[in-house]
């Protein structure tokens, strides 16, 4: 086993390893192979089965088996990772998803490790001995490429940026680790409330069907939910729809909502002003349905269809069903 390591921080949501976690291994192997680094999975909390499924992807899994880590909680995760670094030594690279927890954890860790951190990365590679990350800035109107000078280099990776690697030769070991936490870490989780109606969660979904004010009423989102079910997609929405109280904010796509990169994004009755585009323009394929042929959304789409969303959605759902 090489003594230089890349740590991949796994996340579990709704009882499963997230898709973004699997994508992190795409990033990890890309940089590991060039420099003969070992890829190590780090799992905080979760079940043995999660650790074992991670071990399919990594040469080693460090499983911090602590009931206190069952639900992600920033300070606890942070203390866990820090203790792990102190006992195992610093890896060369630490990768996490640009999820709410990754974004909370990694900047703090960068300070504690006195090292560099790049967020929302869409690609990473070596340039000589330096690790370079590409990340969108100004809402994707430009990209920057940053060199991280110190070890460990910390990155959060944008969901959808890397593909899940197939056929990994690994069947790694699982090392179970117990840590001690102080009881009072400052924050206490009191309550959790679910905010989504769809089964799929927006930033994780491979396909997103989004509705705008063009859907006419909150009730009409039912049509979209049916289509979402057919496509195993998550439902997204424009800000106008969220501001009108039709849908909850965590479905909002755009500058003041979520930034997502699914494989397929279908926008129904969304005008497509820049604020919305900034949240979805890195999707692989974008489809727009709008009754106005001049709608700006078409300028940022791969495929466009001029028509009434309320007519189109049910027919599309039926068409997809018939082709299954």
């Amino acid at each position, binding site marked *: 086993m090489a003594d230089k390591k890349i740590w991949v921080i796994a996340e579990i*949501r709704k009882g499963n390893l997230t898709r973004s976690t699997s994508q992190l291994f795409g990033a990890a192997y890309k940089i590991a192979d060039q420099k003969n680094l070992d890829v190590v999975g780090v799992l905080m909390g979760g079940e043995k089965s999660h650790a074992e499924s991670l071990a399919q992807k990594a040469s080693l899994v460090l499983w911090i088996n602590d009931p206190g880590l069952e639900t992600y909680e*920033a300070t606890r995760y942070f203390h866990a990772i820090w203790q792990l670094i102190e006992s195992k030594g610093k890896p060369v690279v630490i990768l996490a998803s640009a*999820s*709410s927890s990754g*974004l*909370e954890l*990694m*900047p*703090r860790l*960068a*300070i*504690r490790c*006195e090292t*560099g*951190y790049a967020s*929302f990365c869409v690609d990473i590679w070596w340039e000589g001995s330096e690790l370079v990350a590409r990340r969108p*800035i*100004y*809402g*994707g*109107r*430009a*990209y*920057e490429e*940053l*060199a991280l000078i110190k070890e460990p280099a910390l990155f959060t990776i944008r969901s959808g940026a890397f593909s899940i690697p197939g056929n990994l030769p690994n069947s790694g070991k699982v090392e179970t680790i117990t840590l001690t936490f102080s009881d009072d870490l*400052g*924050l*206490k989780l009191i309550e*959790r409330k*679910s*905010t989504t109606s769809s089964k799929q*969660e927006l930033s994780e979904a491979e396909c997103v069907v989004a509705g705008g004010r063009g859907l006419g009423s909150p009730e009409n989102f039912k049509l979209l939910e049916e289509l979402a079910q057919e496509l195993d997609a998550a439902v997204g929405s424009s800000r106008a729809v969220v501001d009108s109280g039709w849908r909850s*904010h*965590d479905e*909002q796509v755009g*500058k*003041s909502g979520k930034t997502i990169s699914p494989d*397929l994004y279908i926008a129904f009755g969304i005008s497509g002003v*820049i*604020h919305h585009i*900034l949240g979805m*323009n890195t999707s*692989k*394929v974008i489809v727009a349905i709008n009754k106005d*042929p001049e709608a700006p959304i*078409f*300028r*940022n*789409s*791969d*495929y*466009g*269809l*001029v*028509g009434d969303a309320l*007519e*189109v959605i049910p*027919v599309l759902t039926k*068409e997809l069903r018939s082709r299954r």
Partner: protein
Amino acid sequence: MKLKIAVLVKQVPDHEAMVQVKSEQELEIEDRYVCSFFDEIAVEAALNIEKNHPDAELFALSAGGKRSIDALRRAIAMGIDQVVHLGDESLEASDSNYTAQVLVARLRILQPDLVICGKQAGDDDYAAVGPMVAELLDIPHISGAVSLDTNPDLNMVNVGCEREGEIWYLESGFPLLISAEKGLAEPHVPVVTRVMKAMKANIQNIPLNELELHGNKPQGRIHRIRYVEPPSRPEVIMMQKPFPENISELVNYLQEKGILS
């Protein structure tokens, strides 16, 4: 308990401002700058606390070049009287560690109970300075706050924050740092008299050499190698057939593309 609240703000290009890559080393940015979207929410959240606890003391801080002064003027216009501008133009190219160090150098002196910043800045979209400031101050932080209930008498705060598909409610004592998500507060349009006051205000600057920076350098941990153009999307393909044939036309395209099985 008399709450001391510090709000961190930054001036950034408007969402609609044109931003173009001029060369690997230079961006061309249209001269339309505003106080960052989430930072205005942070300011409003602080003002909301002040409404319930009138003896709260509010500060706004901005680290950066001359433009930061405009973000502070916005904070004054919205209702925060005590503002400080930290550093100079050299901060415009600094990494987030350095920015956090500069802010913390001042925050250590102010010793706020609550620090509120935006979830991420509208220019580099980094989402890092807040948590970094918290770590440097060695206080807990909560990112993406959508609700905030303070109870200074009990020395407690309850913060709702957005997680994937959920809202979590966390309880904390002070000091604490939170970063503001949309929904935490609704920024109001400042009244004319406050705007006038903000325009006339003399804004204090603290130069970098008067701040305790512990040898940190502007690009000590990260340096930008280059800017690159965003990937461009090919010309849109419009469906040509009439409804409802255009639906199968579309599905055919998506299947050909391998995006639908």
